[in-house]
């Protein structure tokens, strides 16, 4: 798992000196920091794309004594691994971003929710935290600033994808089953132990570290009007050079395919199992919030792949990972999987498949959290975009 390639990119992979962002923000007012983040138009990198400045302003404005900054390192979306790369290779960027969050929002405690699958990173992160305390980048009166106290602890998850959803994550931290909460109230007012809490993705914190140093306006110059800055993409599947890439928003899927050496590409799954599956006629579209939006997972399928078995793999994932709390998701995903199995055997009617697509649309509306709201995306997009192959059963093999 050693770093094989020298990473380069416009922001996150451009180089960063540990502690730099913290040294910078202690010379700034909270308003100034928030203004810069607002200027940058940074949106959350965990997938939902909520403006970071809005979230931070709400927590900063809350009058509670106790507030929390939580780093969501539950990275469970199939095809996503960029947060792992950040935590292994660039912990300073992420943890400094959390300290900046603590300073800006007036929180004294930070928690990293690290997925159980990444337990092997725990030790190096803990060692790094100890080092930060020694260097007074964490702890009391950080860098000699009277009253600027902030510390970070790590909480290990236990193998549940839904715990990446921020309210399920908070439930899990509180010692409960990771079942999503009703929203509102939102974590910004009623989060961990009932206190104002900002939950942000690993990459969001890393981006903040750069934004406070170089300014919001600088960041906004990259990317597109509605999707500012750069994004980490986790690219896997049928290509010569899979891995994590930092790219400006707005790049087309075609350009990505060329860059990673993908040949004879039939389909690209953008956004992981909960994202959408695109066929060739969509490859000229761009990766951006306003076009094809994503938390960064890109999975490439070449002509030899059977899209129905791809879909089956996704639906099995959701059946296993649904927390079972609400009916549309608990039952709906099972029904969609059964539909895939009918298609596999060739025992289906077109009207039933259409009804399943309607069921999918109902799930998108009626499920309680993002898991059930997005799990039908693959079902619907694969059946729409690969109709010929699936309904006429002319597909390829999936390596098994």
């Amino acid at each position: 798992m050693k770093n094989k390639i020298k990473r380069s990119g416009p922001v996150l992979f451009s180089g960063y000196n540990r502690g730099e962002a913290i040294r910078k923000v202690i010379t700034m007012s909270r308003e100034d920091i928030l203004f810069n983040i607002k200027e940058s138009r940074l949106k959350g990198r965990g997938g939902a794309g909520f403006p970071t400045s809005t979230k931070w302003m709400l927590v900063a404005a809350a009058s509670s004594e106790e507030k929390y900054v939580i780093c969501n390192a539950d990275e469970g979306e199939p095809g996503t691994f960029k947060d792992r790369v950040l935590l292994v290779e660039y912990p300073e960027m992420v943890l400094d971003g959390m300290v900046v969050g603590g300073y800006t929002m007036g929180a004294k405690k930070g928690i990293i929710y690290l997925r159980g699958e990444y337990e092997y990173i725990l030790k190096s992160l803990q060692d790094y935290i100890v080092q930060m305390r020694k260097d007074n980048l964490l702890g009391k009166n950080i860098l000699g600033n009277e009253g600027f106290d902030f510390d970070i602890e790590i909480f290990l998850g236990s193998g549940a994808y839904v715990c990446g959803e921020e309210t399920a994550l908070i439930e899990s931290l509180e010692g409960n089953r990771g079942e999503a909460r009703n929203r509102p109230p939102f974590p910004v007012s009623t989060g961990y132990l009932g206190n104002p809490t900002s939950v942000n993705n690993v990459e969001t914190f890393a981006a903040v570290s750069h934004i406070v140093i170089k300014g919001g306006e600088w960041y906004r110059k990259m990317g597109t009007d509605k999707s500012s800055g750069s994004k980490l993409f986790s690219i896997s599947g049928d290509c010569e050079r899979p891995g994590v890439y930092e790219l400006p928003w707005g790049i087309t899927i075609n350009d990505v395919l060329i860059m990673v050496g993908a040949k004879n590409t039939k389909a690209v799954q953008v956004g992981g199992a909960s994202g959408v599956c695109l066929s060739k006629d969509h490859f000229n579209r761009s990766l951006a919030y306003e076009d094809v939006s994503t938390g960064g997972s890109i999975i490439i399928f070449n002509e030899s792949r059977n899209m129905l078995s791809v879909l089956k793999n996704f639906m099995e994932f959701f059946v296993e990972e649904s927390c079972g709390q609400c009916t549309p998701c608990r039952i709906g995903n099972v029904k969609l999987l059964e539909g895939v199995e009918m298609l596999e055997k060739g025992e289906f009617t077109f009207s039933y498949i259409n009804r399943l697509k309607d069921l999918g649309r109902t799930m998108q509306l009626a499920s309680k959290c993002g898991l059930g709201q997005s799990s039908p995306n693959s079902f619907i997009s694969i059946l729409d975009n690969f109709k010929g192959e699936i309904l006429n059963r002319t597909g390829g093999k999936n390596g098994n």
Partner: protein
Amino acid sequence: MLLMEKNNLTEEIEALVKFYGSNRSALLTILHEVQKKYRYVPDFAQQEIARLLDIHPVEVYSVISFYAFLNSTPKGKNIVRLCQTITCEMHGKKEIATAVERELGIKIGETTKDNKFTVEYANCLGMCDEGPAMAINDRVFTHLTPEKAINILNEIR
């Protein structure tokens, strides 16, 4: 469970509660610690944790049953988790699984008679660019071939 073992377990859990606190939010961390040592959370431990955190034992069981990585039944000394998600599937998960099943003489989901290995499927391990991947306890192995996977198991055995 023998009385002495029970006493030991009680003492260990008391120490954990003392260290991590008796708040409900300490529950998962305490469960992790118990499991790290025993590889599952025995019934008696569940009851003791419930008593010391002042919650109902069913609450403890309910939490254990929710999380894939927490067990209420004994597991092998080494827990092998094969990634079953899409890119690992595309790159040969099935061949790895078959080789492991044959070599250990068990099916996925089972534990070997000598209690050395439990083999399970896991969802995305986040190693999609280096698949097929598997985790053994808290170590991760990537770019597997059936042969490489078996060699790794034999080294650990």
